[in-house]
């Protein structure tokens, strides 16, 4: 379901936005408009939608209009033209009072430099949104404590923001937004001001929280690695306009423009490609109980491989067969494959990044099985596949 819809949103800063808008519609460049009218085009005709429970990362370099765009969604900036719809409601049509009400109900916002109120204790910061809504003291304290616990800051409520480290401060910022239990989180470069290590922690934490919360999140970032990690989909902006919208996979493998392609080149491909994107899905397997040694040998021969994974009836992984063992089994006239099967094999989950696959594959002589949480076989990765996947995407 579409939660947020942006239609042809334009934001122009300056004193003659109408003229600039007209020029923009005529197809004049942003530089030209700026030179002729002195107006700055922040967002130039952006359309996309965000589905319920989805994380969409709006990515671009500084000056690409991404922060302006997110502020248009809750109308901290008044869009010059275009439409913004949240749950089907035209946000631009709301009056001052309705807009305030709408912001209180729908949005939680997290800011790049945390925007914590230095004169209020941590818990009072977290309570801020509830206080604005007029929730009574006991109830908001309870919600604030719960929210602090969610972000791992239980017991820090009585401190002042100035006494906390950067990473903790942003947890407070996140807790403040979550305390309202809003449908939508707007996160404006929320992790950009943090150290790389802490940033990674916070990203992981957000992913974890999102598993349980299922919020609709618009995340602003200038860091492609972060965008690829967090985003279900990415919107790449340049000079206020959309360059490409798509999943990480689409952005990486099918960059729509030269600009995106250059961007993608910078990415460490081994951190982005996961086992799931590399693996071969339709590998032949042997079925325990129904297949005998001859069938297994035939399957190996057909695929020109020297080992074969064995699965149970419900497709859960049972083990692996090596060609020599199976041949010996056949010579002995045995029919039960299980006798030749090795069970202590390495498996990985679908979201294991490629760079973690290297050491695993170095240790073993057979392919790696990719399984899901129920231990069902999803695919197979052989060494050659890993190298060719990386060469294909990263080595251009």
């Amino acid at each position, binding site marked *: 379901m579409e939660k947020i819809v942006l239609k042809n949103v334009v934001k122009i800063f300056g004193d003659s936005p109408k003229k600039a808008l007209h020029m923009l519609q005529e197809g004049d460049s942003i530089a030209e408009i700026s030179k002729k009218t002195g107006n700055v085009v922040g967002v130039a005709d952006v359309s996309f939608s965000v589905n319920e429970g989805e994380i969409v990362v709006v990515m671009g370099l500084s000056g690409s209009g991404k922060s302006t765009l997110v502020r248009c969604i809750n109308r901290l900036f008044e869009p010059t033209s275009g439409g913004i719809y949240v749950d089907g409601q035209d946000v631009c049509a709301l009056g001052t009072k309705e807009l305030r009400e709408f912001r209180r109900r729908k949005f939680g916002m997290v800011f790049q430099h945390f*925007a914590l*109120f230095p*004169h209020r204790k941590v818990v009072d910061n977290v309570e801020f949104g509830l206080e604005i*809504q007029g929730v009574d003291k006991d109830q908001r304290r309870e919600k604030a404590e719960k929210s602090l616990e969610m972000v791992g800051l239980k017991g820090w409520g009585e401190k002042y923001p100035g006494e906390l480290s950067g990473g903790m401060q942003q947890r407070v910022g996140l807790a403040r937004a979550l305390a309202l239990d809003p449908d939508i989180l707007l996160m404006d470069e929320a992790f950009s001001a943090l150290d790389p290590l802490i940033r990674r922690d916070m990203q992981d934490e957000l992913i974890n929280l999102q598993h349980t919360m299922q919020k609709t999140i618009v995340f602003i970032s200038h860091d492609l690695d972060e965008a690829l990690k967090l985003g279900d989909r990415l919107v790449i902006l340049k000079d206020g306009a959309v360059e490409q919208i798509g999943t990480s996979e689409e952005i990486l493998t099918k960059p729509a423009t030269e600009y995106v392609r250059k961007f993608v080149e910078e990415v460490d491909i081994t951190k982005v490609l996961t086992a799931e994107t590399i693996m071969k899905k339709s590998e032949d397997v042997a079925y325990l109980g129904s297949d005998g040694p001859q069938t297994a040998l035939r399957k190996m021969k057909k695929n020109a491989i020297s080992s074969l994974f064995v699965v149970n009836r419900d497709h859960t992984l049972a083990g692996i067969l090596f060609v020599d063992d199976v041949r010996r089994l056949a010579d002995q006239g045995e029919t039960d494959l299980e006798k030749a099967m090795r069970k202590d094999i390495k498996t990985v989950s679908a979201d294991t990044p490629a760079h973690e696959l290297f050491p695993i594959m170095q240790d073993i002589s057979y392919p790696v099985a990719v399984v899901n949480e129920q231990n069902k076989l999803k695919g197979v990765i052989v060494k050659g596949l890993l190298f060719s996947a990386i060469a294909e995407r990263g080595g251009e």
Partner: protein
Amino acid sequence: MNLDLPRVPIGPTIEATIDFLVEHLAFATRAFSAVADQGLRFLESTMMAVHPIILVVVATVLVFFLTRKRGVTVFTFLGLGLIWNIGLWSAAVTTLSLVVVATLIAIIIGIPLGIISAISDTVYRIVRPILDFMQTLPAFVYLIPAIPFFGLGRVAAIFATVIFSMPPAIRFTNLGIRQVPKELTECADAFGADRWQKLIKIQLPLAKTTIMGGVNQTVMLALSMVVIAAMIGAGGLGGEVWRAIQRLQPGAGFEAGIGIVILAIILDRVLHQLATKD
């Protein structure tokens, strides 16, 4: 050569305006008069009702609890004791009362004006040149229009003092609120705070230090003006100085001057401490 241009009628216009205002604003001047006069009487009579020694001790204890500093506390005790000792107690009480009343009125008008000019750029554009004008005009000039409104005496002195000391209260309030980081006010907006909530919960608390700095300046300006206002009959320590000048008594003039300095230092230290607390 004499150019035969008509003289620009600044003086006559001002006089005509004042005449007009005196005639038509009688209700306002009467109200101001009543407030200022009642306030003064109340303060003065309260302070004079107790023995100076008690008041010196009370003031000293108060200063200690406000500042928690030994130096200022000792200074307060010795300074006020000296004022009493050299026979300037009642003059000092009058001066202090004048300062308190004038400052209160200046703050009550000045801080809201500062808030409004911080919120509205239009108001600020109008207020700023007026403030510049008020602060550069020589202090004595304020005394003149005060007389037709209120006649010679203490109310006229308070009026002139209020006008003279108000600008920093307005300016610093405006500055303090405008200095609140944009991200914080934006955050308040994003959470759906209305203007009043934003002001009370975020802007004013964060502007507090700056506003208190303005209040400090207002008090100091009020003190200096109250002394000058002795010329139109304000009395107090300024009155002692004024009398000493007329009678050529440098000793008495100096004593009164020292009394003013003592008051100024105590007020400044206490207010400074209040402004920078937490």
